[in-house]
């Protein structure tokens, strides 16, 4: 399902101009990460995708729906939004009830609801806490519950606002698997994140924002190669890219395997170029 953001501007009541003419086209099945410094407008943009905010200028199309002409409840059929702070999202007495709330409000049959809940619980490794109160769980677990509640709605578009915050190594690996599963299933995944290492590994397209505008938009490796632009947006390249740059390796490796292949290739090339082959 296509997303089309055209020349959107938005100013909060306190006068902060959060978006100033943002345009963006995302085709169905794409995985896109939006990065930029705090206050760049990332969350404001994301909240335009599910109708929590409406453009004061320009328009946002989700498929053929103009967000100004549909309710948040209607848009929730197409766009699942995982909040940055799970406590903004969770309110039910148990994790299971939390996950069932969305599909029930979409009018799904009971057997469909149960199947969606069971799948989301298994996906996020939450089966053991299914009957716990969400607020008896740790903050990082509540974040996974918030994600599971959105996944249970089976929307074609999933928007994740800072999904890696507070996650340990196992949580990061789990999130990575979920994102790869969503991509494989042809669902559109959009994330806002400061975790540039995670983004480089899982998102092939990068949008860089600063001061309510889009500074760059393109394939992740090409965007990460624009070091001056990243500095302007207060973004640091991923660890492996910084290392490759420091070692003068000719490439933008996004994974450990890519870095090792680049290093081995460069070393072999240097060996061949020496006159004595030594």
């Amino acid at each position, binding site marked *: 399902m296509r997303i089309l953001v055209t020349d959107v501007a938005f100013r*909060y009541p*306190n006068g*902060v101009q959060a978006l100033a003419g943002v345009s963006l086209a995302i085709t169905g099945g794409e995985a896109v990460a939006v990065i*930029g*410094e*705090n*206050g760049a407008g990332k*969350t404001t943009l994301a909240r335009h995708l599910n109708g929590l905010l409406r453009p004061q200028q320009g328009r946002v199309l989700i498929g053929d729906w103009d967000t100004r002409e549909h309710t948040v409840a209607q848009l929730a059929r197409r766009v699942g939004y995982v909040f*940055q*702070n799970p*406590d903004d999202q969770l309110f039910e007495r148990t994790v299971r009830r939390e996950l069932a709330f969305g599909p029930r409000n979409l009018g799904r049959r009971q057997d469909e609801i149960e199947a969606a809940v069971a799948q989301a619980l298994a996906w996020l490794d939450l089966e053991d806490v299914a009957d716990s109160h969400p607020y008896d769980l*740790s*903050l*990082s*677990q509540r974040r996974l519950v918030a994600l599971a509640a959105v996944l249970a709605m089976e929307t074609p578009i999933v928007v994740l606002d*800072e999904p890696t*915050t*507070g*996650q*340990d*190594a*196992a*949580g*990061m690996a789990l999130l990575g698997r979920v994102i790869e599963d969503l991509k494989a299933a042809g669902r559109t995944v959009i994330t806002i994140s*400061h975790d*540039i*290492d995670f983004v480089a590994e899982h998102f092939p397209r990068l949008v860089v924002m600063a001061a309510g505008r889009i500074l760059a938009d393109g394939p992740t490796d090409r965007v990460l190669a624009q070091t001056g632009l990243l500095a302007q947006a*207060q*973004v*640091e390249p*991923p*660890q*492996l890219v*910084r*290392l490759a740059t*420091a*070692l003068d390796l000719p490439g933008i490796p996004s994974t*450990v*395997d890519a*870095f*090792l292949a680049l*290093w*081995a290739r460069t*070393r072999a090339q240097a060996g061949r170029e020496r006159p004595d082959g030594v």
Partner: protein
Amino acid sequence: MITIEHLTYTYPATNRPALEDLSLHIPAGQFCAVVGANGAGKSTLCYALTGFVPHFYRGRIEGRLHVAGHDIAVTPPSALVGLVGLVFANPFNQITGACYTVREEVAFGLENLGVPPAEMEQRVARALALTGLTDLADRSPFALSGGQQQRLALAAVLAMQPRVLVLDEPTSQLDPVGTREVFTVLGALAAQHDTTVVLVSHALEWVATYADRVIVLMAGRLVADGPPSTVLTRPELESWGVGATRYTQAARRAQAQGLVPSGRPLPVTLPQAVAFWSCASS
């Protein structure tokens, strides 16, 4: 500054201790990072150091815990205000909701201690400057982005000038520049002002760059303790749920695949990684 001896703590209505037989000494002015998987007891340790455990959470506590000369088990949290500050993982849990502006929010604790207005203004201005919030001082705390709120939570505690600063993932929502600024401030507080810093973080590259010492918790127990370059390259880290920086991962995999000679110490930070690969190339 902090002495923990055989500390075991169990939350009410649970059987498994959140902290188990923990012993630790952290001298004044040390920057000590705490890492571990989620559920390892890191936040509970923060709560214990600040008296929330056991005075707010109740539960069963055994062993000894002394912070800034106070026995935490018998010292009311009010007596620790000004000595020990806690920055919560979720700034929403900390922002009072009683203040109209960022400036008032940072001043809130000082007002409650009766700090004279002139001094209060000075301390608030300094805390705002240290956290990059000066330009947002007149904005409502609830009109800030998530990262800006996290800076505000830090500013409010810095203004109190505690001798022991306990921070539970204070940079989890910050951009890289903000993260660097926070770590720089914490490093300076420890080095120049003798503030003892206990920091919970998953940001291993920053921890390795700034912390004097890293301790690893797993299931409430202390499983590793030492300098960052030693602790953060331990092969058991993955099984402890901590992970490793990409620098460590790449070097370890290269050694395992025979791409570089084994035995060389693994890097944790960028300068260490550059040195590692430069040696491997020569």
